[in-house]
């Protein structure tokens, strides 16, 4: 079984409210909120009608780690998460440019890279999403659930593939 991560339940499930961003930002820095400090970002495109949450996909070969010029990023071999050495990272943003999934960000106030840490296995964004748009599960579990929902809700396969974050 693969490690659990975050998926979008359905291509139209996310409303773009940004509550996940608020919760994430408050979770990592209690007592202050700003979605620009969050490790999950909602991308809203009013022209295409797509609203997609973006976050780290814990890639097998993370481009962000390779791109870092000061070797501040590393991937935890157990969890797959990207770890940032805050003393080395200077917030240059090469990792942001390298990540084609828009899953890593530079915190605008402290100027350090930040990415999803799944809140130690209890992701708060999932907990506070009132539309249950975010699902925390393994890729096998997700594929199984998607098959069911694709059949029952007549979502086109092309669209359904876009739900994988």
């Amino acid at each position, binding site marked *: 079984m693969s490690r659990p991560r975050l998926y979008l339940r359905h291509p*139209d499930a996310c*409303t*773009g*409210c*940004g*509550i996940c961003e*608020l*919760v994430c*930002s*408050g979770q990592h*820095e*209690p*007592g*202050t*909120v*700003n979605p*620009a*400090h969050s490790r999950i970002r909602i*991308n809203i495109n*009013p*022209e*295409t*009608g797509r*609203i997609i949450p973006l976050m780290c996909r814990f890639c097998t070969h993370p481009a962000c780690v390779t791109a870092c010029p000061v070797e501040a990023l590393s991937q935890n071999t157990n969890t797959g998460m990207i770890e940032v050495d805050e003393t080395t990272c200077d917030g240059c943003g090469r990792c942001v440019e390298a990540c084609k999934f828009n899953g890593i960000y530079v915190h*605008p*106030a402290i100027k350090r890279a930040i990415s999803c840490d799944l809140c130690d296995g209890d992701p708060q964004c999932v907990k*506070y999403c*009132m*539309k249950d748009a975010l699902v925390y599960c393994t890729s096998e579990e997700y594929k199984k659930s998607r098959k069911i929902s694709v059949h029952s809700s007549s979502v086109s396969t092309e669209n359904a593939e876009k739900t994988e974050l």
Partner: protein
Amino acid sequence: MSTHGWTGNILRVDLTHAKIQTELLAETLRLDFIGGRGINSKILYDETGPDTDPLGPENRLIIGTSPVTGTLVPTSSRFTVTAKSPLTGILGDGNSGGFFGPELKYAGYDTLVFEGRSENPVYLFIDDDRVEIREAGHLWGRNTHEVTSILQNEIGDSRARVLTIGQAGENLVKIAGVINDREHAAARSGLGAVMGSKNLKAVAVRGSNGVSVAHPEALLELVNRMYEDYKRCSSYDWYTHYGGTTAIIDMCRAGSAPVKNYMKSGGTDLEKRLPIAHERIFEQYKLRNVACFGCPLACDKWTYIDDRPMKHPDGGSFHGAIWEIYDYPFLVKFNELCDQYGLDLYSVQMVTAAAMEWFERGIITKKDSDGLEIRFGDKDVVRTLVQKIARREGIGDILAEGSVRAGQIVGADPDTTSTCGYGKKTDHGPIDCSAIAGLTLSLSVSTRGSGHLRAVAPMAWGVFGSLPPKWQKVFKDAGAGNAMDKPWIAHPVKAEIATYFENVCTSSDIIEICKNTTEFYYFYGYEGREHKDDLQWHADFLNAVAGIDIDRQTMETIARRVLNIEKAYNVREGMLREHDMPTTRLLRKRVGGPLDGRSIDPDELQRLFDHYYKIHGWDVTTSIPKRGILKELGLDYVADELEAAGCKV
């Protein structure tokens, strides 16, 4: 002074001298007026007055957020835009959701105040402490969607938030609104024209600062409790699915959706309207839930017309019936056109429908309208008129003055311009309140004139056939059991209920959260929700975020204070009881529809107004706030000033 919730800064921009300065938000201002509409109205009262030309450089354009804006408090994305209104000449404000308000907070400002007038078109760019007045020649003449995209590209950040006017605001159209994030409007009162008069095309903002929360754990606990309460509400499932679209049919069933410029009674078009009822729309079109920032309910919809996502207009404003047009794709496109030009959807409906009646009666002819036959039911006419209004072209130049003024210019009977508060020159919304006494009162006394979001709660008036138990008790205790479910009866108890909801609405505007989640509106869920005391929620949220300690009673006092300073503003402009009165068509006997044969008894209605003013501590004859009540609210200086201006307080 609390360092939480508020950023503590007012950003002042003098466009005449290109001067930008940050001012400390005084503690008295914070504690007495909290934020949003509260602080805005106070600043407007202090800095403008009868000598202020609404389109002159001396007018202020104030954009206000609250301590809870941009936090996890549900629906806390709203903000208020305030100025002296060019449409009415009295207090003008518009309230909007979207994303702009929170971003202004993240940039480090609670309130933004513009004054003066730039020589050339400019826009303001706020990037935390870096605030620049930038040249906007390339934006002038462009619509709100274009401006938003251009500025986001220019700044290189698709999450920069843009508040802008369209061509209507540039052309000083008095029913122009201010649009943010393409589709969210602070539409009412013609504030787009104020922005245009200052040569201010847009404000773009992004912020990297956090909003400080005093008690994050207490806040999370409150949020959890509110979410649970939402889910208990019997309306939760259908409301979060259908959102505002339900109003299309509900308002018709209640008789409050006007037909043919109010010439026919509201609700007589049920047959024609059924094909655009929410269930049918959801069957025929693909719709998608969209939310304002921080809102777990997502009443907003994108609807796919010609395979393109377009904003579904909020149900309450969705009345093609006013022109006798029942065509869903047309109505959605009409809404987008208004958003793009930056026009108030309500006012455009009012003034174009009135023009159709004037044409039908021969008050205006093809000679006045460049050959256009302004007939009811004609979609092309509506589209053409929207363009003409936005550009002030031909007949559009007159219609751009709003329905009351336009009627006066063409010499129409005031009766053809249905509005509550004719004397205040207000553009009413598409709301037929005839034979609905509580609604008529609430719209009439609104401090921005005919504001349907100020005091009225349609369902609580018995319009929908059944009253929540709480209000049944209020009726019974007042000895008005027979007035339950009889909206045309103007029993004084309705003034008390209006006042109750006025507090809820004012308080919501002060802390800038959405009224859809309050007892006031759809989602008030008298079945299911356990914690429905809105003022208590507001006080609790404020305490958790801002680290202050206020109770329900204080919250109510603050709301009363704000309402009274707004009323005093209008009194200073010469607006008295007589200016609050509705036009006669709204008092006629209904023919057909759910309230067939009913009308409000005019004498009874006057007694309802009497009672409303009396419980406010305002003089019954003039409606001027008495010194006693102003003093009680700490507004002695307002009483002194009104007295000096010759008002008997």
